[in-house]
């Protein structure tokens, strides 16, 4: 180990130290405990500065991790997501008097896990990063210890997560067995030079690895847990749950596929094709029937996983860029949408049904406008960034000229058009229907920055996308 190794993980180290400080504060501090959130934000800011202050590229810790524009792009998304989750949590936790240091500490640990997933250049790190992301989430989903729904969601998430981890690990075992390596480059080397024990074993390993990813990003049929877990988790956690793991899962998935398995595409593309088509269709069609906003957004996020799977399937430079753009926009938009849901939610998990949104425009014009913007962007209307994300991903698929890809895009477009229906339902309720009670909704100022970032990204990058496009292109470039 050398200093440069240590430097390469400084942002993670900063977050870990902050998390430990939070744990100490939890013991020392008496309520009110507003400082927790600020400490966590300070840690994230420090990590962000370190991320940029150390202009290092290359592989570290004996090739375990790789730093490049790709990992930096994603780390920034992760840190923004984490900061947003912290800000949303402040007013949310205050409602239930559960403001605790563990909450923020676990959030930071999960963020470290995501960052390692994006940096990973070895299946060992990928696996540990995935678990470091998952285990804090199991706990956070069950954070409301006295609510049965929260307990139940946590148990389901943990048992099914562990179940799918079993397949994931068996996949790694088979890959290791067949290629004798866990390093991304070494695996590709073994496949290309045919140094495998058995090509069938490599493929089986890849197939099982895919199960782990598919579970994490909630592709059908591995998505069954998602709606239940999203519904049962505290809404502030749902916001994090529907963005962080999905972005991290897709990023790691894309990186593994492009660095190690690109040459075997012809053996497995059909699987991803079917999963993508199924995911978007099931996600959208089911979302139409949901009246609970959390469940509706859960199925919506399933559907978005389907669109993103298109980018993974295509696997070209363009599609990788499209995915970077899509992920950045998706993360901020979904986080903001759940943030609004979290703020509107009443004390005992009330106001989660669509009827609770009637006339919201009158009770809180700001939240209604933000929510509308988020819905419009998720639905993919121009000129929002959500439209551009879809456009980049789908046009990359069409540009391959492959008939199957084009059909998949047609399915995706039909789906995203149908999805407009359920995205507009809350909008109609908010603007077109009379509120049940007219009292203005109290609005916490703490969460405002989250929504401003949402506006900035959704509209700003929707109309003037160049900045995001440039960093996305650079990020995608590091993979090839």
């Amino acid at each position: 180990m050398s200093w440069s190794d240590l430097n390469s993980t400084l942002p993670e180290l900063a977050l870990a130290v902050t998390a430990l400080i939070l744990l100490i504060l939890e013991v020392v501090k008496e309520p009110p405990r507003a400082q927790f959130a600020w400490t966590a934000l300070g840690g994230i800011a420090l990590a962000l500065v370190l991320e940029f202050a150390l202009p290092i590229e290359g592989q570290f810790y004996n090739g375990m991790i790789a730093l490049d524009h790709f990992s930096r792009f994603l780390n920034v998304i992760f840190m923004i997501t984490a900061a947003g989750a912290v800000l949303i949590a402040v007013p949310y936790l205050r409602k239930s008097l559960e403001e605790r240091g563990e909450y923020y500490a676990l959030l930071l640990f999960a963020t470290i896990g995501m960052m390692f997933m994006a940096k990973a250049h070895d299946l060992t790190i990928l696996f540990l990063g995935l678990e470091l992301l998952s285990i804090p989430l199991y706990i956070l989903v069950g954070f409301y210890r006295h609510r049965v729904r929260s307990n139940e969601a946590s148990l389901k998430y943990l048992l099914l997560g562990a179940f799918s981890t079993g397949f994931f690990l068996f996949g790694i075992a088979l890959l290791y067995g067949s290629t004798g390596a866990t390093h991304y480059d070494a695996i590709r080397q073994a496949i290309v030079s045919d140094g495998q024990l058995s090509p069938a074993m490599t493929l089986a390993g890849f197939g099982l690895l895919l199960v782990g990813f598919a579970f994490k990003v909630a592709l059908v049929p591995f998505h069954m847990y998602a709606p239940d877990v999203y519904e049962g988790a505290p809404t502030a956690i749902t916001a994090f749950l529907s963005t962080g793991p999905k972005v991290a899962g897709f990023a790691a998935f894309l990186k593994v596929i492009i660095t190690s398995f690109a040459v075997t595409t012809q053996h497995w593309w059909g699987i991803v094709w079917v999963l993508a088509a199924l995911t978007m269709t099931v996600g959208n069609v089911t979302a139409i029937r949901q009246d609970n906003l959390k469940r509706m957004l859960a199925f919506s996020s399933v559907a978005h996983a389907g669109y993103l799977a298109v980018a993974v399937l295509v696997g070209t430079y363009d599609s990788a860029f499209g995915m970077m753009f899509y992920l950045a926009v998706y993360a901020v938009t979904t986080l903001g949408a759940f943030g609004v849901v979290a703020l509107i939610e009443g004390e005992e998990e009330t106001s989660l049904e669509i009827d609770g949104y009637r006339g919201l425009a009158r009770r809180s014009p700001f939240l209604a406008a933000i929510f509308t913007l988020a819905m419009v962007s998720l639905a993919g209307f121009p000129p929002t960034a959500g439209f551009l994300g879809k456009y980049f991903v789908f046009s990359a698929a069409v540009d391959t000229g492959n008939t199957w890809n084009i059909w998949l895009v047609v399915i995706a477009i039909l789906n995203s058009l149908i999805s407009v229906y359920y995205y507009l339902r809350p909008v109609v309720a908010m603007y077109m229907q009379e509120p049940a009670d007219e009292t203005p909704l109290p609005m916490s100022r703490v969460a405002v920055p989250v929504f401003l970032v949402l506006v900035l990204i959704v509209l700003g990058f929707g109309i003037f996308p160049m900045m995001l496009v440039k960093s996305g292109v650079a990020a995608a470039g590091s993979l090839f």
Partner: protein
Amino acid sequence: MVVPLYHILAFAGLLFTIGVVGVLFRRNAIIVFMSVEIMLNAVNLAFVAFSRYHGNVNGQVFVFFIMTLAAAEVAVGLAIIVSLFRNLRTSDISEIRLMKH
């Protein structure tokens, strides 16, 4: 010792499947959890066999990490089961389903 690699893999596969069957069949969350542990152990067996076959210690190191994970997961999982038991007085997962449809 002359054991074909394929046989060990077959044992690992069978053990893994027994774990899967346990997850699918049992209604007690604790037993389901134990079945997941069986699955992880099947993976470990495969790793050790491959490590032996390749003459490469990496596989065994990986097993070490899987054990770490197992310990962490079991601790958290049992804590969740305990906290659920406090609220519901059961660990039977067929009775733990408020959320559906």
